């Protein structure tokens, strides 16, 4: 039998995908529901006072449990800790797509929180960005209790 060399490429069927629905747990549920009222919740560890935004039920520094009573409301204002301008984005299927209009992604420390959040940043010239700049959450016109309620961050 003659042996051929090389390999063949096997492509997947694009229609096949695995779908998931992740339970969020009670702290995240409180958080997501509060977004409907334009409130941004965080949780403060009763032991070490580290403030997690969004809230969670366990402190990763001292492993103390955090309950509803440990929820704190943040002002929705914050400080820019870092940023990047995205010229491409992933399409969810593993391809980088060039963006016609570059997007800004901000790392923000919300007032009163220790965690850094990664959010879209809009309405600002990327050349004017500075570490420590004040930013605030711009809410969607309609808030329904989900991540979409936060439209983006804007400069104050």
């Amino acid at each position: 039998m003659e042996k051929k060399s090389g390999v063949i490429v096997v492509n997947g069927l694009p229609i096949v995908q695995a779908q998931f629905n992740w339970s969020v747990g009670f702290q995240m549920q409180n958080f997501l529901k509060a977004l409907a009222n334009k409130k941004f919740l965080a949780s403060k560890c009763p032991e070490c006072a580290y403030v997690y935004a969004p809230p969670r039920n366990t402190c990763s520094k001292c492993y103390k449990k955090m309950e509803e009573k440990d929820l704190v409301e943040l002002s929705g204002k914050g400080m820019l800790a870092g940023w990047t301008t995205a010229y491409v984005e992933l399409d969810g299927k593993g391809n980088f797509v060039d963006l016609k209009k570059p997007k800004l992604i901000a790392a923000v420390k919300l007032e009163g929180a220790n965690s850094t959040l990664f959010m879209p940043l809009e309405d600002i010239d990327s050349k004017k960005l500075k570490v420590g700049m004040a930013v605030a959450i711009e809410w969607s016109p309609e808030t329904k209790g989900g991540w979409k309620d936060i439209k983006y961050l804007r400069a104050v």
Partner: protein
Amino acid sequence: MFRNCAIIGCGQTKHTSRRRDVSVAELAQQAVQAALDDAGITMKDVGCVVSGNMQGFGGVAQPEQWLGDWIGCPGKPAIRIATGGTTGGSVGQGACYTVASGMYDVSIGVAWEKHSDSKEAGATTGLMHVGMGNLFHALTYGLSLRNLIATSAVGAAAGVAVYQAMFYMHRSGCKQEHLDMVAAKARRNAAKNQYAHLQWPNCRPEDIAKTETIAWPFRYGHVCPASDGASCIVVAEEKTAKRLCKQPAWFLGLASYSDEENQLQSENFGGVGVIDPSEQMGCRVSAKKAYAMAGITDPQKEIDLAEIYQPFPSQELIFSERLGLFDDGTAWRHMEKGETDINGRLPISVSGGVNATNAIGSSALQRILEAALQIQGKAGEHQVPKKVRKAVAHGWGGVTNYITCTVLGDSPR
């Protein structure tokens, strides 16, 4: 040098088909906290975290990077081990090796699975992904769809195990009613285990026999559930273990040997050189090595209890033989006589086993955990009446070729 180490704390969550009250991170955390509380230590005392699950089922790649914050990873050495069905067993052994090597004094091994996070029942797409490359490959060469559906879909969840059961029944003379007996035993035992999923107090083989046949010889009553749950063990070196725990469960021997793929296919749709998937050479070798390490010469006499990974009842029979607990082809006779019951001579899967509770990534760790509980005398309602000195915990996975075998004892090596 193998430094003596032991399980000093065990934690597991309640297993059900939907743990919607918690996120997967919180689920894993519950088990870790329970284990730490059981051992009487805090996260500060833990030197190393070994974790694992099957990531395709939860839809999060490398989940320990995110939920590590819940299970104690930050600032610590953390190893993620995942070997399919044996994940839990490999995690348990990993936790043992980290301590036995002298690198760390206390380690935790944690494994979890949250099937309900997947939209499909039993996370079928994730599971199919084992051979999806092969399947798409074969389809381009005109694989007969009739053949494909007949061989894989007809078996449904039982697909891989049904052929194995047929091979076993043919060579041992075991009948379908014996499978009913094993399944009934698992559900009966599970009713005594508050953490188990499919509980059926006083379940009789006749009850199982009334359920519909899905593919002969399997009935619905034989099949394991898909559970949400997590389990965790705390492993400590000798001095710490003796200080913290009245009766630690010592690691005596461990092995995880691999045979050739057992289920018809290798990568890219090639054949495999295993005719009989119930032969399980990997299990024979693992058992042999683990017993040798534990100084066990006659497992039939020296092993007091076995926790076997048996998603399907036939596997409890097959693996109890391959683990050397019974002569080949005789396990069902011993089971028939009640020797493997909770109060029998050699109790097997008294927790109800995987047949009653199957959170895949965590299942094999649960076997180790349950064996440890029996040695520690802490199993509660399903504690066996006799003193357990040496117990063997088994894990099974891959394309039916991976085995983990762990021997625990009531005194150090």
